[in-house]
């Protein structure tokens, strides 16, 4: 770890630091709202809740809103005018993002970036600073370790805060983060803090549900195995209770599918995009009536294949970051970790 990559932040200085960010950025942070914790715009430091656990929605909401205007249009007699939005003004800070959600952003970066950039996502992303907060006490549902992440991983965060009791260890996860560390709020690191941080990280990893981690472990060859078992009847069994709602996809930090619609009055309107879900029946429904995924079996299978087979095959990160939201919120407790275990254990015929 090179000099300048890690510093300390006394807890009493956190407020001032966040306030300085609020001065010239739009800041999102975890807030208590409606008996839930959500990642939402904050106007003051007092809005933030750094309790244990994760927000119900994920960091993707801030960069890829559920409903987003692509452009407005007005059409008169033989004339159409298009009003496309220009890039947002102020910078964006995503504060309190857990390591799983930060890793999720890296996958979204690949989807919306690449050689053809999605300006709605990329404009915001360029101006975004991710200040993560490590999970010194992971939730019972978490399995990030099995998905290549970790409760104290700085991957995807520009800065990562790790709670050492009376102060935070602050690690830079990117060049942007290193620049931020020059802020006066931060102090030099010392050996004791580093040792303590190491302990906290080890304790955090140890405290995770080991049985679940073993279950969700993505063995080598899972991709190939998923391919081989594509037509296997095990999918009938796995998917029989699926309700076909969109909870898993909407709460997931890496799911990115969307629909594009025109919403229009007499002569003016907007083209918007809204989240869509591969679990919905019309997702792949063609105008001719053909639907390659006619039942929840094909649709549930698609989600698993996309996350654990197609994305890795395309050289991307795994599509699952182990946040556990789909596991706890699925009304019928369909569990992706069990699916991995069942598929891994199944003999190909």
């Amino acid at each position, binding site marked *: 770890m090179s000099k300048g990559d890690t510093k300390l932040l006394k807890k009493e200085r956190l407020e001032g630091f966040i306030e300085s960010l609020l001065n010239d950025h739009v800041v999102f942070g975890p807030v208590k709202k409606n008996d839930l914790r959500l990642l939402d715009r904050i106007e003051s430091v007092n809005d933030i809740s750094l309790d244990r656990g994760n927000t119900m929605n994920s960091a993707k909401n801030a960069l890829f809103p559920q409903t987003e205007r692509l*452009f407005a249009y007005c059409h008169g007699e033989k004339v159409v005018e298009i009003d496309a939005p220009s890039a947002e003004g102020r910078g964006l800070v995503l504060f309190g993002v857990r390591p799983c959600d930060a890793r999720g952003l890296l996958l979204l970066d690949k989807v*919306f970036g690449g050689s053809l950039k999605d*300006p709605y996502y*990329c404009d915001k992303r360029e101006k975004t600073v991710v200040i993560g907060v490590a999970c010194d006490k992971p939730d019972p549902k978490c399995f990030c370790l099995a998905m290549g992440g970790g409760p104290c991983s700085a991957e995807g965060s520009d800065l990562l805060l790790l709670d050492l009791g009376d102060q935070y260890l602050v690690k830079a996860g990117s060049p942007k983060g290193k620049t931020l560390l020059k802020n006066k709020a931060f102090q030099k690191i010392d050996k004791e803090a580093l040792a303590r941080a190491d302990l906290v990280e080890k304790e955090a990893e140890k405290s995770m549900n080991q049985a679940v981690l073993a279950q969700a472990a993505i063995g080598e060859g899972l991709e190939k195995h998923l*391919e081989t078992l594509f037509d296997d009847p095990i999918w009938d069994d796995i998917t029989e209770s699926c309700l076909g709602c969109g909870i898993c996809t909407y709460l997931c930090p890496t799911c990115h599918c969307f629909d594009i619609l025109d919403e*229009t009055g007499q002569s003016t309107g907007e083209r918007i995009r809204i989240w869509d879900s591969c679990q919905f029946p019309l997702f792949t*429904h063609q105008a*001719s009536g053909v639907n390659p995924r006619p039942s929840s079996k094909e649709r549930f299978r698609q989600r698993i294949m996309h996350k654990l087979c197609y994305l890795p095959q395309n050289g991307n990160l795994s599509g699952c970051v182990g946040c556990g939201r789909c596991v706890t919120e699925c009304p019928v407790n369909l569990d992706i970790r069990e699916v991995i275990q069942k598929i891994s254990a199944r003999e190909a015929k």
Partner: protein
Amino acid sequence: MENPYVPFLMRIENVILETEDRKIKTFVLAFVSEEDRKRFAYVPGQFAEVSVFGKGEAPFGMASTPTIPDHLEFSVSTIGVVTGALHNLKKGDIVGVRGPLGNGYPLDAFKEKNLLLIGGGFGFSTLRSLTNYILHDQNRQAFKNLTIIYGARKPGLLLYKADLAAWGKRHDLNLHLTVDQEADGWKGHVGLVPNITRAVAPSPKNTFAVVCGPPVMMKFTLPVLKDLGFNDEDILFSLEMRMKCGIGKCGRCNVGSKYVCSDGPVFSQSELSKLTGEAHF
């Protein structure tokens, strides 16, 4: 940053009714902006997303050939909200276009090769584009024998009748038209496209087969081509899926790990045979 979601404007110059059931029309579009006209460059096999503002967007294969610049043509079958709205538009109306999208046919690989184009019904659009491209004076020499097998349910449902008539008079291609059942005055083949393909029995030697049509037609044409001796890498399909963004972001048009909009819509059978996913045809 360039915005790939915002269409440029085009004006309807002409609307051609293609079929006797009035369900398919070809729209001839002109660019509203000179800059867009200069910039638009496509190859046969690509597609574009056409917008009817207020109704939405839908993907259509390029039916025009890039050898005739300044205009784009799209053939539209009225089947849903956007296509229904398009059919109600008239000369002078404005639509939006985003494109060109997709990978198109591999023209370089086609050079010095024989070409067998097999089309069914409405799927013939991009094959018409490819045919007119090949037949252009400047291009014809680059390709060898050209065989076209094109079928529709009835004679009145064949598209591009003027093109078909003109091609029929040429000596540098073999045109095989077929309809499902006997019809008054019909002098071409009678039978489904896969069966006619089997009967015509084109040679696979040094030949690319390019197939585009309804899923069931493509499904039954593949084994015929394999029986005739075509290799997987020499059989190309142009696939269709429900699409929205057209640029590989919205996640819906995949066949296995490939997006039909950006990795396709043209795939070789050897590529398709390696993909896991729902049957594409």
